[in-house]
Structures are given as structure tokens and as C-alpha cells.
């Protein structure tokens, strides 16, 4: 997917100015938060479960090569093919080749963020193969001119009911419907035809189970089952970090994933798919391919951002992020928005292509608190800031400003003088008022709010004066 993260700031301003989007964000805000809080109540021991989940994920990412090999061996035993893709281009090449080999004209897709990373739909279309998104949210976006998703589990969360009603009326050429069940039925009718005629199904994978060579899929609409069982070919595309050791581990992680994501104790559909259709079985794919994607993940192993590989893609961090809640997902400019996206985008799409993202957080740590695998997101964002500074990627004025300030702050006499001057200058700016409406050195602050006036003298000088009087 094309990366537009360098325009974060402009994107964010556009989001703030978009009245319709702001209304939709207000409507969506809180729903995920409330539902998650409710769902966690029936978990006896959230912290304990989280520690267990964290341990499972650490076990895997600390020896990723070993677990991947185990998974590969088991998957091959079940009759599946296992392929390795270095990057998005290789994903596109491999999937196109698989499609060509089996004479595929149409591919039905269950949601896959890796497919978004790779820009797979465009590649398939270029090869004359029709990709059809069947997750309702993804379908809505696909028929709306291939709009990118704004959330990893609710891709069309930025759209309102009215938006979808208008869209379906336009693209389906049907009378405009305003009831959600009617709109859903309309999409089902369109998709049914595709399910019946697709030659290949393509899905992501929430987890890969090394013990059995299976892929686990967490979905809510049932489209995942249609995609993975009806066509003769099933291709799973997922990141190499998604492997876990055992089915027992899967059950631990599943106690947290749906609760953290949608506030459900279990998703409507939960599938563990193993191998190809056996002679005595009635359904399932005849050919099963795993395309396991690196795209920057292997480079993260063992480094400063290693812990990020624990991520199970629940979206809780973005749901709880004050910045995400305010501007939505598109502003982040790539596949993954919110706090996890602000870490992943620099790592996978280039730190130099996403200068703003690590700074686009208040470091409030609400994300870290809700993360079901305990990823210290604010700490990782801070480390990225450090990396940017070390690499000279931040604006020169900012770097010089920081150095000068830090230098002065190490010289108490000079600092005291500077603070005295600063307090008086700000007081002078405020005049008789108790506020400053335009801060010349920080106009960003006063564009949307006042800057309260200082009291006029520094604590230091007042305290010295008081001590002087007392003595």
C-alpha cells in the first residue's frame, strides 16, 4: 500500500475539519471501550491471563525461526504448501502465480492486513484476476473506489449508516435503504454470487498453530468460512510473527483477543483450519497454501522494538487512544493506525517515511494499559523518537532548540536568568489580561486555545526574596 504517513499533520488537520467524519468518530467513540470493559468483567484474572499471553508470545518471538520451522513441518504433513515472502512484492508475485497455476479468475477474500500491506488487490487486478472483499467493512471500502481501511478490525468505522446507504444505492443501483439489516442483506445477496463462483479463497490468519500446522481465524460474519471452504484453492497470507506453539496456547490467547477487540467473550465464528480436504470429507479446499510474510518483521527480532512482535492485532490500543479517537485512522497514512501503527509504520515502511508518527501521541499510556500482551507502546514510541533524533531525521530547528534548552538547563545561573526573562516576557504579552491569545514562539498552541498568563515572577526569585526577608 502506498504510504502517506509523511502527510500525517496535514491529514490530521483535514480529519479535524471534516464535519461528517467528526460526527462518525463521535458516534463510534466509546463503543469499543465500553464493550471491552464489560467483556473483561467475566474474566477472573485479567492480569494473570495477560501475563500468560505475554509469555506465550515471548516464547515464540524469542525463537521465531524454530517455531516457524515446526509449523512448516506440520503444515506440510497436512498436505499444505508453505511459501515464504520477503516483502509485499513477493506476496503479490506468489499469489498471482498460485492463481495462474490453478486457472483462477475470481478470488474471494476474507480480511487480511498483510494483503493491504502488499497492495495485493491491485496486483491481482493487473494480472486479470478479480479480487472480491467479503468482509462487510472491506467490501464497503472496495466498492467505494478502493478506499483504504481506517481501523484494523473495523475497516469502515469512519463511515456512517447514511454514507453506506448512499454508497450501496449508487453502486448496486438499488432503491436506497436505511435499515442496517436491509443493507446487510443487500451485500449478502451480492456476495453470495461471488462465493459460489470464486475459484480461490484468500484469508489472513489470526494465529498459526505450530503443534498442528493449523491456521486459526477469528471472524464475525461467516464470510471467512465461505472463503476458506468453498473454493478449491485456499491461500492464507499472514506475518511470520503470528505463529504460536500449541492449541492450549491458542485457547489462552483467545480469552483475550475477542474481548480486547470487539468486547465479545468469543467471536461469532472461530475456525481452526487444518490441511486440505481429505477423500472422505465433503468440503474444504483441495489446495492449501500458506504465504508467510517477512516484510520487515525479521529485522525487528532481537532489537529495541522486539516486544512489538507480540502484537495480536486486536485494535484495543487505537480504540482507547485519544489521538486516534479524535482524527480517525486514515490520517496515519498507511495500513496500521493508532499507537501500534505509529510503531509498526516506521519499522515496516521506513522511519524516514513516517517522521511524525512516533510523535503523534501524548504518551498517556492508555494503550499500554489495555494491550492484551503488555506491549509498552509509549516506551517504543519514545525509542523511535530517539532513533529519529540520532539519525538526524528531526527538523534542524527542533534539534538545535532541544540542545540549546538542555544545555541552558544544565547551567543554573543562566537558566534562572532565562526563566526570569521568560516569565516577564509572557506576562508582558498577556498585558492586563490573564491569558495570551497568540504565542509568537508557539502559535500552534494558541490556534485552538488560550495560553494562561504566568504569575510574572519565577518561583526561584520569589523564594529567594522570601528567604531574604525571613533572614
Amino acid at each position, binding site marked *: 500500500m502506498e504510504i502517506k504517513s509523511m502527510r500525517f*499533520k496535514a491529514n490530521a488537520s483535514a480529519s479535524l475539519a471534516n464535519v461528517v467524519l467528526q460526527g462518525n468518530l463521535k458516534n463510534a467513540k466509546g463503543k469499543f471501550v465500553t464493550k471491552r470493559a464489560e467483556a473483561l468483567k467475566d474474566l477472573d484474572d485479567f492480569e494473570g491471563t495477560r501475563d500468560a499471553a505475554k509469555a506465550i508470545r515471548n516464547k515464540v518471538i524469542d525463537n521465531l525461526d524454530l517455531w516457524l520451522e515446526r509449523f512448516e513441518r506440520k503444515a506440510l504433513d497436512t498436505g499444505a504448501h508453505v511459501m515464504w515472502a520477503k516483502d509485499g512484492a513477493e506476496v503479490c508475485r506468489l499469489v498471482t502465480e498460485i492463481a495462474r497455476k490453478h486457472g483462477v479468475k475470481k478470488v474471494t477474500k476474507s480480511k487480511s492486513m498483510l494483503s493491504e500491506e502488499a497492495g495485493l488487490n491491485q496486483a491481482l487486478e493487473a494480472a486479470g484476476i478479480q479480487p472480491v472483499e467479503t468482509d462487510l467493512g472491506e467490501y464497503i471500502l472496495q466498492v467505494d473506489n478502493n478506499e483504504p481501511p481506517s481501523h484494523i478490525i473495523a475497516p469502515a468505522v469512519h463511515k456512517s449508516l447514511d454514507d453506506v446507504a448512499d454508497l450501496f444505492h449508487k453502486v448496486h443501483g438499488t432503491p436506497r435503504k436505511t435499515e442496517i439489516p436491509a443493507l446487510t442483506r443487500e451485500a449478502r445477496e451480492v456476495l453470495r454470487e461471488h462465493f459460489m463462483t470464486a475459484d480461490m479463497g484468500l484469508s489472513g490468519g489470526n494465529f498459526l498453530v505450530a503443534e498442528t500446522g493449523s491456521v486459526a481465524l477469528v471472524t464475525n460474519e461467516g464470510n471467512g468460512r465461505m472463503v476458506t471452504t468453498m473454493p478449491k484453492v485456499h491461500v492464507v497470507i499472514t506475518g511470520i510473527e503470528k505463529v504460536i506453539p500449541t492449541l492450549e496456547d491458542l485457547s489462552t490467547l483467545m480469552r483475550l483477543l475477542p474481548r480486547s477487540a470487539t468486547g465479545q467473550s468469543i467471536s461469532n465464528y472461530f475456525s481452526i483450519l487444518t490441511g486440505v480436504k481429505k477423500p472422505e470429507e465433503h468440503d474444504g479446499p483441495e489446495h492449501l497454501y500458506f504465504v508467510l510474510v517477512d516484510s520487515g518483521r525479521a529485522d525487528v527480532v532481537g532489537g529495541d522494538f522486539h516486544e512489538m512482535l507480540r502484537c495480536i492485532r486486536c485494535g484495543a490500543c487505537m480504540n482507547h487512544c485519544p489521538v486516534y479517537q479524535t482524527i480517525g485512522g486514515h490520517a496515519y497514512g498507511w495500513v496500521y493506525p493508532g499507537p501500534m501503527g505509529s510503531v509498526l509504520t516506521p519499522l515496516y515502511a521506513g522511519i524516514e517515511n513516517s517522521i511524525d508518527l512516533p510523535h*503523534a501521541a*501524548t504518551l498517556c499510556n492508555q494503550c499500554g494499559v489495555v494491550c492484551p500482551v503488555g506491549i509498552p507502546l509509549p516506551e517504543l514510541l519514545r525509542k523511535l523518537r530517539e532513533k529519529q*533524533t540520532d539519525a538526524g531525521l528531526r527538523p534542524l530547528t527542533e534539534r538545535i532548540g532541544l540542545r540549546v534548552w*538542555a544545555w541552558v*538547563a544544565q547551567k543554573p545561573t543562566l537558566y534562572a536568568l532565562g526563566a526570569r526573562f521568560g516569565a516577564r516576557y509572557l506576562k508582558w504579552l498577556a498585558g492586563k489580561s490573564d491569558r495570551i491569545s497568540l504565542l509568537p514562539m508557539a502559535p500552534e498552541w494558541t490556534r485552538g486555545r*488560550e495560553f494562561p498568563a504566568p*504569575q510574572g515572577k519565577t518561583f526561584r526569585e520569589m523564594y529567594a526574596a522570601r528567604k531574604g526577608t525571613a533572614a
Partner: protein
Amino acid sequence: MRVGLFVTCLVDLMRPSIGFAALKLLENAGCEVVVPDTQTCCGQPAWNSGDKPGAEALAKKTIAEFEGFDYVVVPSGSCGDHIRTEYLGMFASEPEWRDRATAMAARTYELTDFLVSVLKVEAVPGTYKGSVTYHDSCTGLRSLGIKAQPRALLAKVEGVELKEMNGCEECCGFGGTFSVKFGDVSAAIAERKCDFIHSSGARAVAGGDLGCLLNIEGKLRRMGDETTRVLHVAEILAGEV
């Protein structure tokens, strides 16, 4: 008990009354309070901006200035946490400084936490008339567990009627340099906080971090609210309002 008061750079520059309120509260509780006059900033802005050398230099300076005291008290959860938590991770490869940072971290407290958890104060000098809602600043809340302490202290102030707001734990949008790097987003988040404050019906909002308070007051005034008072919890507790 000798207590070193770390005033914080923001209080020094913007609102000395908070420093004096903290001083009064500590002295009133029987502490011998020293305010080292060479103190400047704990280095958090440098650390959070990715300037590690600057942050380390200021951390060492602060440790050297304050390690002689029985306790170090800070009228800010954010600066307090920086000293208590972040200093520890800063000196992984410098054992001497890591030990000094560890020793100081164990004796460093956010003001309300210190008054409640260490001094176990029974009474506070302030009186106040009116309703107050409390904004939980993110770092104090989520890193230091500052939640019950300021409320317990406010309950001891005669005349304070605490009216909790929905979303009291939600970020106000300040975020240090975030507030000037992404001013529009920051102000939009602040607006939500102000809506929560208004819905509470309280006539004043209190908090433990001046950064958040400047952000909230600035947004309230821009929204046309000329009456809701924005106070540091120390100011109410000390009766310095």
C-alpha cells in the same frame, strides 16, 4: 525529616504559587523542606523528544542535587514519574549512576502520594468553598497510581464538594511537546475534556500537573468559559487560592 522540594520548571516559570503551596503543605506536616536553588528541569522534555544525551545530563544533575535528602517531593505526577521510573532505565550501562538513580527513585514521591502514603497527614491547612471536579493526569495515574490520594486529601478540606466527571481518567491532550507539535489535535482532545468538566457541573477543576492545567484552562477560556476555576490540588489543600 529532610525533604527536598523539586518545584518543576513549569511551576517555576508559570505558577510559583503551586510551589509555595507545596512548601506550606510539607512544612505544615512537620517536614524540614529544602529547595535546592540550582534545580532546573528533570529532563523529561529532552527524554520524550529523543534527546538522550540531554536527558541523561539533566538526570545526573538532578540526582546530584537531590540525593542527600530523606525524600524528594514533586508537585507533578509526570515529573515525579520521570525521576522514579525513567531515570532507572536511562543508565543501564553506567552502574554507578544506575545505583544512585535507584536509590533516589525509591525516595521520590509525587506530592499528594507523599502526604497520604508517607506522612499520613490527618489534616490540611486549606479551606475552600465550592464544587471541584478532579482530572487524573495520565502519568501520575497510570504509572504512579495517583488516584485515591488527591481525593482523600480534598475530602479533608472543609467546604470542598467533589463532583466526579465522566472521563476523569481520559487524557486532556497536553502531552508535553505534543501540545505544540500537533496543536490542533491537542486542542481538540482538550475540548472533550472540557465537555466532561462542564457536564460534571463543578465550578472548578483540579489536578496534579500544571501542564494539563494550562491546557485545560486555555481551552476552557477559548470556549468562552470565563468562570470555571482551574487549580492545582496543592493550591486548594494549602488554601492558596
